[in-house]
């Protein structure tokens, strides 16, 4: 049961949030020019790393803001959470150990 840091409300219990998958996948702008493969990549393919993952969270039962978090998918450690408009925090170079 995670404690998740909402960039607006601070540390909160995981049950106030929902997770919505990989972050930083912009919607293509000129979709009509895309091939089926390119469109399929955008809709279906994710990096699914065993390691650090940038992902989207929503503070459902709180301020209802979407934000991004950087979490390690093996240790489940949150390195950072950041607003959608914030720059991406760097990935630590310690291999996921805390």
């Amino acid at each position: 049961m995670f404690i998740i840091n909402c960039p607006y409300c601070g540390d909160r219990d995981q049950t106030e949030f929902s997770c919505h998958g990989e972050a930083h996948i912009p919607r293509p702008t000129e979709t009509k020019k895309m091939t089926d493969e390119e469109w399929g990549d955008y809709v279906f393919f994710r990096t699914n790393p065993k390691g650090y993952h940038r992902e989207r969270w929503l503070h459902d039962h709180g301020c209802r803001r979407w934000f991004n978090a950087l979490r390690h998918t093996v240790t489940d450690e949150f390195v950072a959470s950041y607003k959608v408009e914030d720059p991406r925090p760097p990935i630590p170079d310690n291999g996921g150990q805390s």
Partner: protein
Amino acid sequence: MDNPVKATPLEMAAIDVDGLTVAELGLVNKINLRGDFDSHACNSALTELLGMECQLEANTYVSNSASTLFWLGPNERLLYTDSDPQSIAERWRANPGTAAVDVSDYSTVLRLSGAKTRAVIASGSPFDVHPQQFGVGQCTQTRFGNASVLLSNHADTPVFQMQVRWSFARYAFDYIKRVADYV
């Protein structure tokens, strides 16, 4: 039809047991206000509209005799007011980059007081309402059982308010009533 029946979701139901008093506040006028509250202009416009200082820290509220203004999010405030919600909404919307919606009936407000208040809330909410963490003047949106609620602390005695959606009001009330026996 001159005297239309007004109803609240709980028909003003109340709980009065050892250590806990719960009352449904009647029909509170509520307006959801939007704007860029990070900007000084936006806050001063609101200060002017409501006649009180409206610069809010996250998860706090301010109030005067006529109004209470809650922080809901970086661009969202909730106003409880004795005034006509429509006219306030219209006046607020006159400011650029804003929005206002009358949400008076979207939810109802329960007032909880008595020694068991915190234990009752802790039964359904993962949010820490210990006085060191959640003092008078603070508010938060959180979860109570399956319901999303807006909690606020109004006195250390303690007095809490819990705002809950109309169709979840019965559930939240029954929940409080049941756990009041258990804590």
